[in-house]
Structure formats: structure tokens, C-alpha cells
């Protein structure tokens, strides 16, 4: 498998990244149709910034913990189902993007392969988020049960992220 494909699948291979993408996708999907594009753009810019920082040799950060904390916040907001100001939603999307990028260091020997992995990761995460947003808005359009289902999923994501953060704290692995 070449580096680009490895990167493309990377966001779907890590449970924490799937959790974060799902929470953000559900949150953006709950917002008014015209505002979704702003948050999607903020995520793409954020993930590009995070991956650029990794390419520049930022090294080890606490991005994984911040990503889980943002997944908790996004999941809880989905469960509450309150409309958010456009800027607040875009900010959450940007933070998710930056931390997801920073938490995706490529495991490659050559610079060419590492670059391909990073490009694939950026594209894969953005496409996955767009698909989740589209799916959420479609399900919400089906009626009350779709919207309630999204809220239940948000609650499950927030609960899972909170438990993981607590476990990491108890083991002295947090931040």
C-alpha cells in the first residue's frame, strides 16, 4: 500500500480520531445548512495547519488529550442539540482539525513517503468529516427520530471520551 493510501485511511484507523470526527460531524450536521461550510473550511484549514506543524518537526505534543477533550465537548453539545454561533462551531472545528493533524505523525523512512502520508491524512479526514456531516443532515431531515438518534450518539461519544480522559488521568498519562 502506498503512503498516500495509508494516510487516507489513517483517520479511520484510530478509534480516538473516529470518535472526534463523528462528534464534530454530528455537531456541524445539526447546524443550519448555510453555516456548515464555514465549519468545514475551518476544519480543513486546522488539519492543514496541524499536519504542516508535524512536517516542520513539532514532535510530541498533548494533541491526543486535547482531541479527546474536544470530542467530549462536541459530543455533549450534540446531546444538548442547541444551535451554536457560527464562530463558536468553526472554532471547535479548527481545534479538532489542528489536534487531529498534530496527533497524526507519519511512520515513514523517506521524506517523500511521509509527505504522501500527510497529504492523504488531510484529505481522508476532510472527506470523512464531509461524509458524516452529509449523513447527519440527511438523517435529521427524516424526522424527529433521526434528530434524537444523533443526540443519543452525541451522548455516547461524550461519555466514552470522558471515561478515556479519566482513565488517562488515573494512569498519569494526561497532558
Amino acid at each position: 500500500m502506498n503512503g498516500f493510501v495509508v494516510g487516507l485511511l489513517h483517520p479511520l484507523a484510530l478509534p480516538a480520531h473516529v470518535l472526534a470526527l463523528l462528534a464534530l460531524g454530528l455537531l456541524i450536521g445539526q447546524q443550519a445548512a448555510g453555516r456548515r461550510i464555514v465549519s468545514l473550511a475551518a476544519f480543513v484549514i486546522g488539519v492543514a495547519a496541524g499536519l504542516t506543524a508535524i512536517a516542520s518537526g513539532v514532535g510530541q505534543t498533548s494533541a491526543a488529550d486535547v482531541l479527546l477533550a474536544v470530542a467530549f465537548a462536541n459530543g455533549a453539545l450534540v446531546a444538548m442539540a442547541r444551535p451554536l454561533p457560527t464562530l463558536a462551531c468553526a472554532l471547535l472545528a479548527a481545534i479538532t482539525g489542528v489536534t487531529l493533524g498534530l496527533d497524526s505523525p507519519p511512520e515513514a523512512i523517506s521524506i517523500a513517503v511521509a509527505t504522501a502520508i500527510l497529504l492523504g491524512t488531510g484529505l481522508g479526514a476532510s472527506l470523512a468529516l464531509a461524509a458524516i456531516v452529509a449523513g447527519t443532515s440527511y438523517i435529521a431531515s427524516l424526522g424527529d427520530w433521526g434528530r434524537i438518534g444523533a443526540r443519543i450518539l452525541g451522548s455516547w461519544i461524550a461519555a466514552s471520551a470522558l471515561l478515556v480522559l479519566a482513565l488517562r488521568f488515573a494512569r498519569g498519562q494526561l497532558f
Partner: protein
Amino acid sequence: MARLRSALSLLMDRWPVVTAAAASILLFAVPALAHTGSSTGGFVGGFAHPLFGSDHVVAMVAVGLWGAFLGAPTIWLLPILFPLVMAFGGVIGIVGVPLPGVETAIAVSAVVLGSMVALAARPPLWIAALLVGAFAIFHGHAHGTELPPGADIVAYSVGFVVATGLLHLTGVAVGLLARWRAGRIAVRTAGGAIALAGVAFLSGLG
């Protein structure tokens, strides 16, 4: 032949009920081992964990049954609130904050929630939420102290929460039988059975 066709037609008309009943039978086919937990990591280990404690299983199903009995908005509010409050209880357990009488409270939750269903009790929403929320903390605490030191804690936690949520939804699905007269009797009987199971847990028989 006509009878068979009629029976099949009835089943097709009531497929949500049939599906819910089948799901419940499959769920209850899991052996009850009273809160022994599961020591394996990953999603499967986390998913199995809540299913291997009969006291937890019956209480979670009772939450769903009661929610369905109470109707909107409780029917969907409890499955949204419970995991969050339970996770808070889990955090308390994980960081080592002691909570007295956890196992007793879990058994009591089966008695109380089962009785609520059996008696078709309809308290105000805030009382129902407070009652279920209080029990959620004890259930979460018990699980929090039992979480194993697995390699993939994210997948484990997701599996654990999803299994608990599905137990609620199974209860809700079965509770929807209460739309019919015979179903209402069956659901209330199930509530009574859950309450009796809780009494057995309290007396050490379960």
C-alpha cells in the same frame, strides 16, 4: 393455509414488535454472571463488560422500559442523559473516590426501577430524571472501578458505552409493546420480574 397466511400477515404488520422481542430474547440469552466484568481489552471487551452483570443488565433494561412507559420526552431523554451521568460516576470510580454501598444501590435500582414499571408509576419528569440519574452514578462507579488496564482504552470505553446504550434501547423497544393491552400487561410483568430479581440480588441469591 389461510390461518398460516393470516399469522404471517399479522407478523409483517407488527414487525417492530417482533424485532424488539427477538432482540430481547437474544440479549437475555447472555449468561448472567452478576457483575464479574470482562478482563479483555478493545471494543469487544468493553462491549461485553456491561452484559456480564445481570444486576446491571436488568436495571438498564428497566430504564428503557420505564422511559417507554412514560412517553415523550422521557422516552428519549433518559437514553441521552443516562450515559453522561453514568460516565460521571465512572470518573469518580476511576480516580478512586469511594462511594458507599455501591453494589447495594445497584440491586436497589433494579427493585425501584422494576417496581416503577410494574406499578406503571408516572412521576413528574424531574423526579424520574433525578431517580435514574442517582442510580446511574452508582452503576458508573461500579464499572469505573472494574475497567481493566487494557491497551486500547478508547475502543474499550466506546464498546462499554454502546452496550449500555443498546440495553436502554432494548428496554425502550420492548416498552413500546405497551401500546397494546396485552403488551402493557407483558411490560408490567417484566417490570415485576426485574423488581423480584433486584430483591434476589439484595438477598444474595442472584
